[in-house]
């Protein structure tokens, strides 16, 4: 059979094995295009932020509104305490990780809907994964969209090495959006200044870490880290999103400063 219509890579891929490392090395170039290079992905914490209610959420919403027209924002939501409740009920009943992932998705969707209604008067839509093809239009027209942070893996969610809690949750889902779109930044809005050597809510002597690389962080082997481990793993293979910032959204102005590219929390870099 002649494959005159195929590129050289096309010929190799059609006939070769996708597990052949020599062939995979040929798929490195060309560098991917940046699909939405002006967009910023912002993840708003569930337990750390939305569960605090009006006192935390309203000022942040105001700050988002102030940045409309200045920065494009793709806003993902965390799940929080209701997901913890659902996970604990599910684990007690012996449900698999894939089902827990479905339950977590529902909670982060509730949070996305709530933020969406608070931003609705500014014409900001909430989109589910199936509506992502419309995302560029909404972003161009309205400057922001809301989505639920959980990646849509549902029953196909991978097991963690230890325990049963889905390893790829809302930090990961938001991160992957920033990487696939070649976005300008990935900002995690939480209720702590950033990364500490231990959970600062429990350890009074926890030390703040303003900047760190993924490999340094892995070497520290902390008991508890401010972002999901899988984000760190994915960052190592990223083409574009090779740094993320964790900020304290309870402090007014931090989100704006982070959107302006300032260092206000912890910056974690791939290398």
């Amino acid at each position: 059979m002649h494959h005159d219509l195929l590129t050289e890579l096309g010929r190799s891929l059609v006939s070769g094995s996708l597990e052949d490392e020599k062939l995979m090395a040929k798929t490195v170039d060309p560098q991917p295009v940046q699909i939405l290079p002006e967009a910023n992905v912002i993840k708003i914490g569930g337990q750390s932020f939305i569960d605090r209610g009006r006192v935390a959420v309203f000022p942040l919403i105001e700050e988002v509104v102030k940045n409309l027209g200045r920065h494009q924002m793709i806003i993902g939501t965390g799940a929080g305490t209701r997901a913890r409740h659902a996970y604990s009920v599910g684990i007690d009943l012996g449900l698999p990780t894939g089902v827990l992932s479905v339950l977590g998705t529902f909670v982060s969707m509730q949070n996305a809907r709530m933020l969406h209604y608070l931003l609705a008067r500014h014409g900001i839509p909430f989109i589910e994964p199936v509506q992502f093809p419309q995302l560029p239009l909404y972003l161009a027209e309205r400057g922001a969209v809301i989505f639920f942070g959980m990646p849509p893996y549902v029953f196909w969610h991978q097991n963690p090495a230890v325990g049963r809690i889905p390893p790829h949750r809302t930090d990961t889902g938001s991160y992957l959006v920033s990487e696939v779109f070649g976005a300008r930044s990935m900002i995690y809005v939480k209720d702590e200044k950033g990364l500490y050597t231990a959970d600062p809510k429990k350890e009074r002597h926890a030390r703040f870490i303003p900047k760190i690389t993924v490999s340094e962080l892995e070497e520290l082997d902390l008991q508890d880290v401010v972002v999901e481990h899988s984000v760190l793993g994915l960052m190592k293979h990223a083409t574009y999103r090779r740094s993320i910032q964790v900020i304290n959204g309870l402090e007014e102005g931090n989100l704006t400063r982070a959107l302006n590219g300032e260092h206000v929390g912890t910056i974690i870099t791939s290398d």
Partner: protein
Amino acid sequence: MADTDNTEDGRQHIKSMLMRESLLDKDLQRSTETPVYRMLPNACVVKIGGRSIIDAGREAVYPLVEALAGCLETKKLIIGVGGGVRSRHVFSIGIDLGLPTGVLAQLSMADSLGNAHILGTLLAPYGVVAIPPEIFGHLLPLFIHSVPGVIFNGVPPYSLWEHPPALGRIPPHRTDAGSFLLAECFGCQSLVLVKDVDGLYDRDPKEHANAEFIREIGSTELKARQLETLPFDRVLLDLLDNARLLRSFQIINGLHPDRISAALNGEHVGTIIHAG
């Protein structure tokens, strides 16, 4: 039990085992390790290769359909299908156009869905059709109790959220991985990958006549051997390591269709890869 805990830390918690805890804490993660409930213990997952079987045309597919029809008389089958040559082609064009891994993953769903409908058409006389991916997972238990089997596109719904691989741009979670993850989550009896080779060899048997056949091997040893190529998605080895319910799978040659019913009956007719 609608107890809430409005604490001094300003966050409203619901009382639960995981309340107020960081889910990223290692001790907490260990505490969640408990036995897993099997949703569909009597169903078997069979993945039919795209390039190896469907693309080979009538000569390979018709006898296989007949063999599957025979199995459907006694077994409940969940049949996943690969994307084959069209997925390879769309990957090559997509890479040439500079599209990232997540977009390639999204594009490839269409090819295996097409193949699912091709196989669904041929299995329609036996009451087996391709189910739309949007409803497949949620309605699967209903289908399995109502019909002899179902077909789905093997691609897991990772789409734009696919993980960028360590090397190159091809999505690492393809149809073998989608079939594996489904079987693990639903606690199915077994996973059989149907290809056009007898199983695993130390080298590609199509290029090396003296390639050595490996009848059974563990994931740890297989990783250590660092074979240049594998007849299944490499990520399966990691998924096996973390599997709680599906601790092995078998690769068989679908050009010998009788091996399908043998494999479904638990016979060792290809290569068995097990966890550990």
